[in-house]
């Protein structure tokens, strides 16, 4: 038996969803805990483990990849959920160790199936997440051996085209074990891709100052209590990482443009909006 908890501050969606899921999951031996509005309100998972269905964008407390890290630290497997979140933020949160991502528009039956999959310790690849993986695959190339094979790519495309796991397996002649192998490789490739773009806390602050608040270098350095040289070094490093991760997308972008694009992609401006504007 697994515990299930929803972490979402949009009660209008969560309440009817939970109401529908409680009997459905109970019939399969799972227990639904009361929803929480932020991850700090969630306690540790029980000894048999549990699934935290967590909104990618949370207004209060840790959000995105920070929320995933926090929940995993409490022993939860995380299934990400969102009405709509920027691609970079979703992929970063998935790379942090989430087992899947679904959009809130999905029918309740599909969401229940995704929870079942994650509760069983397996990865869940929705069409929405496959779309994000496929976009990343097209935009950047990992070193040989870490990138998906052409067969993996075709399987991934089947998910993007809306086929279910069973349909994709049948289409490509994959056994359950081989399908799990593909899913592991797809999630690992995303982790490797995001690792190229791993940013320090200080670099994220620079992204917010330059990319969201549009401060000039001098004002940004002053606001962040660092020298202009240090700020420029951070900007150079950020652009270098972005170029390594997405060479095609980064071509011709200035440091400031890169910062802006990355800040929006990681949804760093959303919170800044609330805090500063």
């Amino acid at each position, binding site marked *: 038996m697994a515990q299930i908890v929803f972490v979402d501050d*949009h009660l*209008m*969606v969560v*309440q*009817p*969803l939970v109401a*529908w899921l409680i009997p459905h999951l109970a019939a399969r031996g799972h227990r639904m805990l009361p929803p929480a509005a932020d991850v700090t309100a969630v306690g540790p998972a029980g000894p048999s483990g549990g699934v935290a269905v967590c909104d990618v*964008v949370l*207004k209060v407390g840790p959000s995105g990849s920070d929320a995933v890290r926090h929940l995993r630290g409490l022993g939860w497997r995380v299934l990400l959920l*969102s*009405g*709509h*979140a*920027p691609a970079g933020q979703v992929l970063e949160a998935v790379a942090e160790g989430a087992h899947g991502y679904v*959009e*809130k*528009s999905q*029918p*309740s039956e599909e969401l229940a199936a995704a929870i079942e999959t994650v509760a069983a310790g397996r990865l869940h690849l929705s*069409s929405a997440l496959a*779309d994000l993986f*496929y*976009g990343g695959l*097209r935009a950047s190339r990992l070193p040989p051996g870490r990138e998906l094979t052409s067969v993996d790519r075709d399987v991934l*495309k089947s998910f*993007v*085209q*809306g*086929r*279910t796991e069973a349909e994709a397996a049948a289409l490509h002649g994959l056994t359950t074990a081989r399908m799990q192998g593909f899913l592991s490789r797809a999630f690992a490739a995303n982790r490797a891709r995001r690792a190229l773009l791993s940013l320090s806390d200080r670099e994220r602050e620079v992204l917010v100052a330059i990319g*969201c608040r*549009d401060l000039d270098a001098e004002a940004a350095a002053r606001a962040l209590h660092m020298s202009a040289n240090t700020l420029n070094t951070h900007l150079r490093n950020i652009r270098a990482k972005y170029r390594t991760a997405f060479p095609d997308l980064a071509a011709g972008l200035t440091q*400031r*443009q890169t910062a*802006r694009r990355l800040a*929006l992609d990681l949804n760093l*401006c*959303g919170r800044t*909006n609330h805090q500063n504007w």
Partner: protein
Amino acid sequence: MTVHTRSRRAGFVAALDWRRVPAVPDDPDGIVAGNEERVAKMIAFLRAAMVPFLLIPLLAWNRLAHPELALLAAAACAVEATWFVRRTLRRRSVRDDHVLVAVDYVFCLALMVVGSRAAEPWLRNEIMTEVVPFSLVSSALLGFALGLRWRSVLGLLALWGGWAATVYPHLTLKLGSDLLGFVMWFLVGLYVPRLMRELAARTARAAAKQRAAERDAARATAEQHAAERDAAEQRRLLDLALHRERMRSGLHDGVLTVLDGMARDDRLAPEGRRSARRAALMARNLLRGTADTGSPFEKRLIELSETFVDLGVLVQPRFYVSAEPPPELAEAVCAAAREALANAAKYAGPDVEVHFFAECDGDRLEVSVVDHGAGFDAATAPRGRGTAETFAAVRALDAACEVTSAPGRGTSVLMTWSR
């Protein structure tokens, strides 16, 4: 000889050697060429101006041994000077004009011989006084045209020899003055062009420098304007991005939440929940920002997708277009996709999502329309005319078009093409 003396001599030689004036490659105003023309006109004027001196011996017609030779010399000088002037004006330069130098030089030697024979030996020095000005120009021409070279120095010495020989035997102190005159005119022929050519080169270099400075200033101004435009564009893009972010945030926290909540609210009628779900889908497609594409093919796909969402079909678009397919193929594929979407709208069922996928990199195209709706028996179901015709049109362009369906298991239409 001390180093100091050697350097002074080198400086003196350099001051006379106009060949040391550096060339100016960047001279679109023609300053150097204009100067060469002025130098040519100067020597041409001198040549023409010295002809009247040859008329003076004719005033002593009765005292001459051979007055007809004096007349012949004057006429020949007029002809040679005319040729000289015309040639220099036509060529606009005397620099390195070896033909001009050779003809004028030989003519002057001949003039000395012929002119001197017009008078008796004791009168030659006097008669040759009138020949001197014309001959001195030849000495100057050596400097103007050849510069400080061994051949011009040797030419000067030959003029000396020719002059002394033709005056012989009437050698007086005036011979020294004449020979010095040849040297001084040669030096003038070196020094004046040196000054003029150096001045022209400096002026041309200054003009080139000025032009470069103006170009740099213009470039700096253009770069500044570009930077200002870029900064303005950056501000506009940031404003747009922040506007979109606020819109996304507003949709995510407000509209989408309400619509997703309504779509799951059992208290609402199925049609109301369906409409809410469709509106949520439209909002998500809007947030996905696919309308930003610059690809005409992708724009058509988006329009197609939006058309069917407006008709109530839950279309999930997934487009990856990095290059355009051939136009006739794009046309056929869009028509077939329209039919596939229309079939999904009619037969899949009201709450079924339809996944509309397209990927094109120029050499390869793949378009699919997949749903998990009612499906049909492909073997027995009647095929509509529109479907049959549009799918056949795709196949006629060497593309594959495969329809897979089974009752209760949805329908898949897959079109693939490669170059």
